[in-house]
């Protein structure tokens, strides 16, 4: 099999990347490989609304948002294979397996990594206690309720106040379950304010900040969990323990980019994002291999995933047409005080078509502070923000004309008032 561009994963990133590549060159042969039985990825189970405000200027549900992109595949003649698992990637070859073709290889000009992310499971959280049934990640519960049509439980405690946890608190409540509490280890929630109000406050579900689960009880099925308040070092405080009877514990404790394929291919990974290190064209350390969406860094808005992936797809198409560029004069973008990481990490000025969009997350909560960007030590941007939290991705845009061949370094920092 041969394709000009192979897109690994048919979720929001993969769909937008494939369309982005096709828009750049309609003649290209583009193939999406998707392991599930349908395209759309996580959007299929995100049946709540709020998607597409930036892209389509209306509030869509997840499946509707996915359909808007799927409908375009035909127009652009983009092929896809479902129920197909990619096993291995190399610079110009993808090896995959499905039940119709067995193990097969696709020779290709460029690869776009769009594998998305995975939830941090119980095993990665070190929660003590027994191992009864009834402990689910919030996303697994979401799939059970919204797609398979099963209720995972009746009395629920949720650990972690990320958006999926908040959304599931409402979803379980609407379907008749009693959500007793949402515990959050940090002194602030990682979820969007809108979700805290509309998913918890609307239904009087308590949000316990600086709390964690310290024990899970039950033999066959969860019968209760013990929660406790934590100190500033995230250690449980003695005497604050309380036992909550429940049959289900949902975990919403962070997402990890799914980079097994990237790592096996020796793609350089950024330890701050757990995603590939990329340049302005979303190209990884391996020429011709691009990455976008949640496999690159975890996003909170799908609109940003689509926009970013369209650019990654476009870059992949351009690579196929013009081949590898010498990696000359790559400017480093440094994440300084208060900034956990930036995407991209490097910029090749001569490859930069438009203004440079730098996305980043903060290391903590900052109030009344400034986002500062310097080019070779000279301040270019100083923007006041009332609040910056790790839960909301930030961005700065550097003008194309401010960047030239002589630039050596760009820094992004957060400084307090």
């Amino acid at each position: 099999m041969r394709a000009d561009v192979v897109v690994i994963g048919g979720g929001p990133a993969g769909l937008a990347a494939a369309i982005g590549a096709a828009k750049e060159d309609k003649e290209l042969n583009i193939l999406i490989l998707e392991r599930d039985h349908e395209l759309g990825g996580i959007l299929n189970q995100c049946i709540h609304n709020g998607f597409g405000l930036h892209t389509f200027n209306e509030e869509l549900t997840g499946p509707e948002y996915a359909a808007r992109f799927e409908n375009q595949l035909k127009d652009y003649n983009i092929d896809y294979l479902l129920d197909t698992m990619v096993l291995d990637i190399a610079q110009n070859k993808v090896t995959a397996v499905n039940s119709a073709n067995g193990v097969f290889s696709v020779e290709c000009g460029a690869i776009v990594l769009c594998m998305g992310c995975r939830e941090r499971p119980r095993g990665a959280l070190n929660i003590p206690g027994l191992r009864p049934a009834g402990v689910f990640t919030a996303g697994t519960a979401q799939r059970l309720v919204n797609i398979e049509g099963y209720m995972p439980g009746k009395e629920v405690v949720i650990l972690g106040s990320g958006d999926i946890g908040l959304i599931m608190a409402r979803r379980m409540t609407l379907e008749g379950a009693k959500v007793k509490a949402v515990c959050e280890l940090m002194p602030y929630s990682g979820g969007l304010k809108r979700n805290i109000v509309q998913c918890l406050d609307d239904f009087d579900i308590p949000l316990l900040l600086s709390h964690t689960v310290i024990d899970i009880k039950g033999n066959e099925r969860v019968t209760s969990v013990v929660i406790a308040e934590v100190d500033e070092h995230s250690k449980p405080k003695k005497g604050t323990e309380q036992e909550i009877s429940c049959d289900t514990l949902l975990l919403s404790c962070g997402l990890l980019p799914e980079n097994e394929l990237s790592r096996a291919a020796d793609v350089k990974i950024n330890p701050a994002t757990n995603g590939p290190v990329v340049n302005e064209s979303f190209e990884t350390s391996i020429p011709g291999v691009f990455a976008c969406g949640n496999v690159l860094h975890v996003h909170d808005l799908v609109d940003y995933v689509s926009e970013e992936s369209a650019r990654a797809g476009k870059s992949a198409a351009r690579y196929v047409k013009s081949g590898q560029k010498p990696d000359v004069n790559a400017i480093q973008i440094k994440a300084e005080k208060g900034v956990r990481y930036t995407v991209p990490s490097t910029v090749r000025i001569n490859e930069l078509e438009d203004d440079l969009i730098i996305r980043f997350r903060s290391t903590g909560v900052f109030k009344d502070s400034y986002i500062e960007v310097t080019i070779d030590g000279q301040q270019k941007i100083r923007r006041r923000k009332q609040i910056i939290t790790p839960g909301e991705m930030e961005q700065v845009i550097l003008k194309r004309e401010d960047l030239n061949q002589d630039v050596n370094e760009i820094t992004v920092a957060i400084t307090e008032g």
Partner: protein
Amino acid sequence: METRELTCINCPMGCRITVKLDGDNILSVEGNTCKRGDTYARTEVTAPVRTVTTTIKVINGVQDRISCKTKSPVPKDKIFDVMEVINKVACEAPVKIGDILIENAADTGIPVLATKNVDKI
């Protein structure tokens, strides 16, 4: 006179807003740091509405549930009435995005629409 405490949802600031009202008559809005907070607080205390998104049973479909939403937001206190109606009905595949699954959900005058395409098995 009644006092209501709200959290603004417009940005991550999450201003605590205090609204004083006499019946439906808003006397004061305090605590917001911008205009958007004022607008949000006024709507939220007089007529709060929410879009309900859930699933409906599908007969003869390639999958057993189809996602759906109320076409426009319904009054907040009608959410559970709307859920009860939705959980009682089933639709038959094929269903297309935008198909009306329920004409008038729980006397709100608002229809429930499919948000996914489900083919016939």
